[in-house]
């Protein structure tokens, strides 16, 4: 075996194999560890929106030890994309038109399977990180929202514009910060009108125009306390909720009338 390796020809061959090993092992060598500052969002009576920190560390293993010794790979650019989205739902977009002097909802378009909350944050603008094709493939970015279920046009533009205005959609490259090329953090904001349900938070690690790692976690968003009780009661038992609302109103009305009479 030793004589076998001493041959110059085979030495060269071994180097090629080693290089191959390095590049494949490099592709697998990065590890991504992420976490959220909160693992659920609870909507209570004092809820007025929420902020969350998504943070993590990137282990690059750039010093890969192989049979042929230590090889340092320099000058690799990593980018991080963070996506948080709510469960897909069906939305209807209505367009107002002037009919006989009055602005009336006229035409509409239904969009199925689209998140009611979608925030995508990245270290650089998306189009500088990934090609259009890649973005579409992974369904990343507001233009690819709903995995292409929305046909381009004024309705799609209106959807994105409206949702951005109400703080439910965002595409930004300002909120992800990276420290020492290892630690990263993304600030996420949630408005008070956020839909409830299981949100999905995803982190993508991008290198050289390719997504090399992804990490997904579920972020449940629920109403809590009396808010949850009232909401569930209203939606699960509508007739009883109606009767309860009447009883509350009648007793509150009689009570306040009684108090008012005593006071005057």
């Amino acid at each position, binding site marked *: 075996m030793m004589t076998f390796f001493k041959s110059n020809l085979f030495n060269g061959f071994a180097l090629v194999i080693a290089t191959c090993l390095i590049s494949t092992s490099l592709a697998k060598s990065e590890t991504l560890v992420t976490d959220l500052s909160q693992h659920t969002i609870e909507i209570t*009576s004092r809820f007025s929106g929420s902020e969350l920190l998504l943070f993590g560390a990137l282990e690059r293993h750039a010093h890969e030890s192989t049979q042929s010794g230590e090889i340092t790979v320099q000058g690799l650019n990593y980018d991080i994309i963070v996506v948080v989205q709510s469960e897909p739902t069906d*939305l209807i977009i209505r367009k107002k038109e002037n009919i006989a002097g009055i602005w009336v*909802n006229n035409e509409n378009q239904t969009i199925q399977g689209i998140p009611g909350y979608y925030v995508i944050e990245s270290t650089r603008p998306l189009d500088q990180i990934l090609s259009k094709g890649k973005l579409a493939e992974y369904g990343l970015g507001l233009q690819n929202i709903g995995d292409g279920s929305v046909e381009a046009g004024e309705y799609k533009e209106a959807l994105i514009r409206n949702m951005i205005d109400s703080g439910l959609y965002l595409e930004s490259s300002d909120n992800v910060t990276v420290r020492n090329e290892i630690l990263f953090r993304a600030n996420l904001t949630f408005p008070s009108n956020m839909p409830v349900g299981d949100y999905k938070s995803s982190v993508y690690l991008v290198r050289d125009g390719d997504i090399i790692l992804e990490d997904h976690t579920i972020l449940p968003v629920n109403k809590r306390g009396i*808010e949850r009780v*009232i909401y569930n009661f209203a939606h699960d038992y509508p007739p009883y909720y109606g009767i309860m609302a009447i009883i*509350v109103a009648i007793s509150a009305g009689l009570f306040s009338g009684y108090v008012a009479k005593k006071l005057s």
Partner: protein
Amino acid sequence: MQIYLPIAELSMNIFVLFAMGGGVGFLSGMFGVGGGFLMTPILIFAGVPPAIAVATEANQITAASVSGAAAHWRRGGVDFKMGFVLIAGGVVGTYFGAMIFTYLRSIGQVDLMISMTYVVFLGSVGGLMFIESVRSILRERRGEAAKIGRRQRTWIDALPFKMRFRKSKMYISAIMPLAIGALVGVLAAIMGVGGGFIMVPAMIYLLHMPTNVVIGTSLMQITFVTATATYLHSVNTQTVDVVLAVILLTAAVIGAQIGVRVGTKLKGEQLRILLAGMVLIVCARMAYGLVVEPAELFTISVIGGEGH
């Protein structure tokens, strides 16, 4: 301090809600009106989805009218038989009103219908009230006494199904009170109002009921009809926000107490002209929203839920 409204699914400043409820309560105490026709538009202007504003107001008016109805009942100011006929009509009207409401909501036209009914009813009622109070002020200046017309026989007396209402000392056809009750029921369901502004004049001028039982009987009908509307909206569209209703109600009761005291210092005609002015302002604001091109032509709503 923000409070999250569980059904409206948005958070609002509790002090703003108190101010709104108290302000409307003050005005309703001062003018002796229910205040639904002011509260619902104000809630809509404040950003509450119109469907939720209407349904929640129906719930709040139940609370606002029940103590008044009880007070009049103790004083013997309720014609129960007439009340039940009005309620029978009212429940049918509310049922159809809630059906129209649910249907229009499903096709995305409920906001338009709410605005249009407000413009039509507030415009005509406010306009009539304004003209009427200006006339009576002018008459007073000229020193003329208001003409008291003798009760004349009209086509209303010719209608069949006559009933005797002992308390009101009347023998009239049940069709007219049923129809008035039904109209008020429809309005309660689609506008979130008690409908006193239609029913009280109708009872006085169409049915010629004695004024001592008009208010008590109409409050009784309003209590039942808005309770029916609350129930139907809860079942059909889940749009009644109890938390919002209770906050507004608490503030409105306090406001109304102050309003009543201020109201007694003002003359009847002055009050009516002020009220007419308010009604016309709300009407104008609603009309403005209909005819001026909105900044955003598109609206988004979740299917089966309320839009944000």
